[in-house]
């Protein structure tokens, strides 16, 4: 016989309501026909979803966000993969310090990092807005890339790399033909997690966007300051669905979050 834990059941239900409630409310209000956010809505309408496309800044910033996140991701990979490799493959003096430096963007408050970025990248070095955004997003993605790929390299048997070298492969050949194919899923997960981090980022972007160039979250923020209609709810639902799909892919690739907690 299973024991019934009523207390636990009630507590869990409350937690779920607390976590998922806002999402449900947003989803429902996005279908409301009125001009202000209202719960429960007075009827059913898809017009606010159409309005996403009507406000041309939304599709435009969506594209900007995607491009910045993808390009930044690529840059973060180019920097992060060799860093993760070196940090897990070799034991050298200053390794822990280097590790801490690479992870520091997640430890520093986003506002501080964003402001510093503004000060240096845009004000001091006069980089174009687009380039500045890209640099900022690369920096915030780097720790995730290094952390996730590092964790898949930490249980990597480097003797297979030595085997490849002993069979005549050069160092790069061995890396691309033997190491990389065996940490594929780690790299995919790193890319997806970093992508989400960058795509949803507000605190860095808010300092780095400028006239005519903005990311979707910043555009949403600006929109909410001026209008209070359900468009914002509709776009949130679209983003939730996209994020959900990505998380589903990560889940399938990595066996979910267990991958990050088991070591």
């Amino acid at each position, binding site marked *: 016989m299973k024991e019934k834990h009523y207390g636990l059941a009630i507590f869990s239900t409350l937690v779920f309501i607390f976590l998922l409630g806002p999402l449900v409310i947003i989803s429902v209000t996005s279908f409301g026909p009125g001009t202000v956010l209202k719960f429960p809505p007075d009827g059913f309408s898809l017009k606010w979803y159409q309005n996403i496309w009507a406000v041309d800044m939304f599709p435009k910033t969506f594209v900007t966000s995607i491009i910045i996140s993808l390009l930044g991701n690529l840059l973060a990979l180019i920097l992060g993969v060799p860093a993760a490799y070196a940090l897990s493959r070799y034991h050298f003096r200053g390794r822990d310090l280097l590790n801490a430096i690479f992870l520091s963007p997640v430890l520093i408050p986003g506002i501080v990092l964003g402001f510093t970025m503004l000060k240096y990248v845009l004000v001091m070095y006069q980089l174009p807005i687009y380039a500045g955004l890209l640099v900022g997003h690369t920096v915030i993605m780097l720790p995730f890339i290094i952390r996730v790929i590092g964790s898949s390299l930490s249980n990597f*048997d480097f*003797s297979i790399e030595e*085997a490849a070298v*002993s*069979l*005549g492969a050069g160092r790069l050949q061995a890396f691309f*033909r033997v190491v990389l194919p065996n940490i594929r899923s780690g790299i995919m997960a790193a890319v997806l997690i970093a992508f989400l981090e960058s795509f949803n980022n507000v605190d860095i972007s808010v300092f780095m966007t400028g006239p005519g160039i903005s990311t979707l979250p910043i555009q949403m923020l600006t929109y909410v300051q001026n209008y209070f209609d359900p468009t914002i709810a509709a776009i949130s639902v679209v983003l939730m669905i996209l994020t959900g799909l990505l998380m589903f892919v990560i889940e399938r690739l990595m066996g979910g979050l267990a991958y990050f907690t088991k070591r």
Partner: protein
Amino acid sequence: MTLLSLEQVSVAYDNHLILENFDLKLEEGKLLSLLGPSGCGKTTTLRLIAGFLEAKGGKFMFDGRDYTHLPVNKRNFGFVFQSYALFPHLSVYDNVAFGLRLRKMKEGQVKEKVLRMLDIVSLNGFEKRFPQELSGGQRQRVAIARALVIEPDLLLFDEPLSNLDANLRVTMRVEIRRLQQELGMTAVYVSHDQEECFSISDQVAIMNAGKIEQLGAPTDIYQYPKTEYVARFIGFNNFLVFDGTRQGNTGLEWTIGDYGFDVQLQAGQSTANTYKGAIRPEDLRIIPLGQLTDLQKSLSNQVPGTVKVSTYLGRSYQFEVQTALGAFTVNQEMDIPIAPGQQVMITFPADKIVMVAQ
């Protein structure tokens, strides 16, 4: 002909010297084992030869060429790892073909060589399998095939059988020896398993603390260890610490106090050096003291003592005997064991005492 020679080689990890002024020579077509406890430098030596480690000093000559600074991938040596180190994302076929494809060989030729090699290691029909679908023994065979197919100038084995179970270990070591001899390969084999090394090698090097204590044919080392370390390592558990010599009934005798021992020196051993006498437990004989006549008791190469422990080993009994010269371990086949507490006489046959350097 000497194929491989390490000359005055030194290797250090973080300023900690593992090998210092290390010398080693190997003839073409021979299998040399490096044997010793963990930390003795045997794996370091192997990795140095492979090129995974670079020497701090000294020279590594191979086939008349200086290999000291030659990168691993230019050496054309086959390396068999303890963990097999198969490529998990490649099939058995692609694992074996890996080295050939790096050599830009035509796919038709690759196929021919891979299939022939899989046949040699009795893995025909396994081409499409992946490493995780194979048993330990099969994986090791793939690893050996992968190392052999590139027709290496030298084969290196790093404890290749230590992850296998006991029966398979015996089968595989016979297999490795057969392949090495059939293909006329020169090989260096690292293991901490004595029996394994002795059974497959032409030469065995017993290593201790970064030095070779003794290098020789397995039978020579087994019968005539030169140092106390080697003797202990290969099962000479009993030692006689001599304090002088005297003229006995049959010639020169070594003494410990009043006890005299007739021993046979090996070629090159002088009477001047101080030696220890080493003897295996199974070469000692014990007999209850009461069964001996006074005349027999007065002979040399004997020490009286008391049995402290008697252990049944299956084929024989093992006795711990306490004597005036210390405790000795004796293995002896007998029907009725001598009970603890009994007075016995231990006999040390002169031809079984091996004189070793202290």
